């Protein structure tokens, strides 16, 4: 090992040690006898007990690594200690669940200091860049999840508050998750089928393209909750006037208005990016196509569409990620989905129930974002990959 010369000191890992240290010193978790009581706060150090030296060892390792010369070793040390931080987070929760008082269903809830370790893990792993190879993301995901799952298996994880909430409503959780997925997929699917032709049409209209973009930009600023609210009254009136619509489920409250609002919302980035994507195709490319004797449909399918595709796909990505979050808000008007658990948790002041809704929601949003990122990387012609879309 070569110690770095002055000036080569890497400050980033120290920025990871700060949140990590907060996890150890500040209240990491609350030990509760049941769902309602306040619970006893425990810091990371208190939970680790005799195993403290491991945590301190990891920290010293990171500190020493930041003085190393820029080598592969340093990155490996960062990545490894990042993984250790993540595993430590799960392990501390399991340790804590052994300290729980006797009771019908005692539980351990994460307190605010809990989030320091995952933040430290993120900073270290992101900075190490050792997982930046092909399918490196999947390797990382396996390395994060597999040991955590092993730690939690055999009933060791069942006292963690989110798990308690989950096991109390396994069936409902599954049902709400499926409802969430179905709502968001239907909305994005419908918006894609409507939005791309609309965008193509608007881009062909010449001047109307710009006004479509400005209309869409304005509509995008309307809060999702306001859009749900504004659609309620007209839909309720429609279903009163036409009993046939009522049998189809068109009412002021429920899945129908949510679906309509979600589709409208998802339309906006798709239409916008289709128009922008088609309009940024340089005239020279079109003229070259014309000069080669291409017919208008050939010109569209072989020149304009491939060149607009990165923009269109970026629009789909934006629409999908937004739709995941907006579907949660749609629970307010009775659409169901993960938002139901979040809002119920807010209503009952039950943070554990909120977490049961929020964690899968965030994972779903990040997952959808990553899947689209992968699709964009794979489908866009390499010559265009520098173009990138504006969301």
């Amino acid at each position, binding site marked *: 090992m070569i110690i770095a010369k002055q000036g080569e000191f890497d400050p980033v890992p120290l920025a990871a040690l700060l949140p990590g240290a907060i996890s150890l010193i500040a209240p990491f978790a609350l030990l509760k006898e049941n769902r309602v009581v306040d619970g006893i706060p425990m810091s990371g150090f208190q939970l680790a007990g005799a195993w403290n030296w491991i945590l301190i060892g990891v920290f010293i390792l990171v500190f020493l690594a930041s003085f190393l010369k820029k080598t592969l070793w340093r990155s490996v040390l960062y990545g490894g200690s990042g993984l250790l931080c993540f595993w430590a987070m799960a392990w501390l929760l399991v340790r804590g669940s052994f300290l729980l008082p006797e009771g019908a269903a005692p539980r351990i809830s994460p307190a605010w200091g809990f989030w320091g370790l995952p933040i430290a893990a993120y900073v270290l792993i992101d900075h190490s860049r050792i997982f930046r190879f092909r399918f490196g993301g999947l390797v990382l995901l396996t390395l994060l999840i597999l040991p955590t799952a092993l730690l939690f298996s055999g009933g060791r994880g069942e006292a963690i508050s989110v798990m308690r909430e989950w096991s109390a409503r396994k069936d409902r959780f599954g049902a709400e998750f499926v409802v969430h997925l179905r709502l968001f997929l239907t909305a994005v699917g419908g918006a894609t089928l409507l939005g791309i032709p609309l965008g193509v049409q608007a881009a062909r209209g010449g001047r109307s393209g710009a006004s479509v973009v400005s209309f869409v930009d304005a509509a995008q600023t309307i809060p999702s909750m*306001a859009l749900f609210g504004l659609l309620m009254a007209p839909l309720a009136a429609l279903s009163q006037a036409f009993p046939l619509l009522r049998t189809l489920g068109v009412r002021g409250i429920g899945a129908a208005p949510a679906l309509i609002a979600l589709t409208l919302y998802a339309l906006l980035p798709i239409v916008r990016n289709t128009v922008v994507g088609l309009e940024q195709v340089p005239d020279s490319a079109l003229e070259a196509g014309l000069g080669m004797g291409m017919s208008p449909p050939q010109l569209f399918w072989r020149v304009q569409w491939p060149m607009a595709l990165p923009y269109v796909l970026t629009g789909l990505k934006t629409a999908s990620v937004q739709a995941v979050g907006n579907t949660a808000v749609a629970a307010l008007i009775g659409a169901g989905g993960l938002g139901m658990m979040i809002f119920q948790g807010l209503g009952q002041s039950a943070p554990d129930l909120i*977490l049961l809704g929020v964690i899968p929601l965030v994972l779903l949003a990040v997952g959808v974002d990553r899947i689209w990122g992968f699709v964009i990387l794979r489908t866009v012609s390499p010559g265009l990959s520098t173009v990138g879309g504006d969301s």
Partner: protein
Amino acid sequence: MKTPWSYRQFLGSALGMLFMLILLIPSILSPVLSVPFPEAQDPVFPRKMLAVLALEHLWLSLAAAGLATIIGIGVGIAATRPAGRTFLPLVRDASALAQTVPPAAVLALAIPFVGFGFQPVLLALVLYSVLPVLDNTLAGLENLPSAVLEAAQGMGMTRFQVLLQIELPLALPVISAGIRTSVVINVGTATIGALAGAGGLGSPIVAGLIRDNPAWVFQGAAASALMALFLNGILGRLEKSWASHSKVEKT
């Protein structure tokens, strides 16, 4: 240079103003609401005047956007200086990741830790709306023509002078677009904040949903939608005038 207002813009603003007036004055609002909602017992939200709720909403959104602007520009500047440059990839990655998290989730996560009320919602709004300001500050400061920066250094300007007199003014249009995005996001998320007891225009929506009173829902929804449209329009015009200023400075 001021661009003349087109006929459509004028009509749009006039209609918007008219709606706003109707919404803000209860004695006009009540008969207007009883036309589409004849069966509503109490068409106007009784707990607080809509004008007060609108002010609360505006204050919450703008205060959060102001704090987010200070933090976002500060972090953006720090990450583009020579000393902070090692943090730049990390800041970029973290900001991109955080932006995929739905605003409602940030709000829901903040509440168990900070409690119900105005302040936790403010905190959640600030956390989320830092991201567009930060992103745009980075984009604005990173994409400056190097010739301009070299010319400034060649003139003997200190780093601080280059930042204050060259970099920030040139990046201003991009940064202000980020601020506009953050204000608009805040107006939207603040509506959901009513669930956490933050007040504002979300409270008639939430109360209307609970009490099955569509007239209340409509008031809150229409007023918050108008507020978002107005703020977006006003800030957009400001941006355009700033952009034309910095273009003059560029040439």
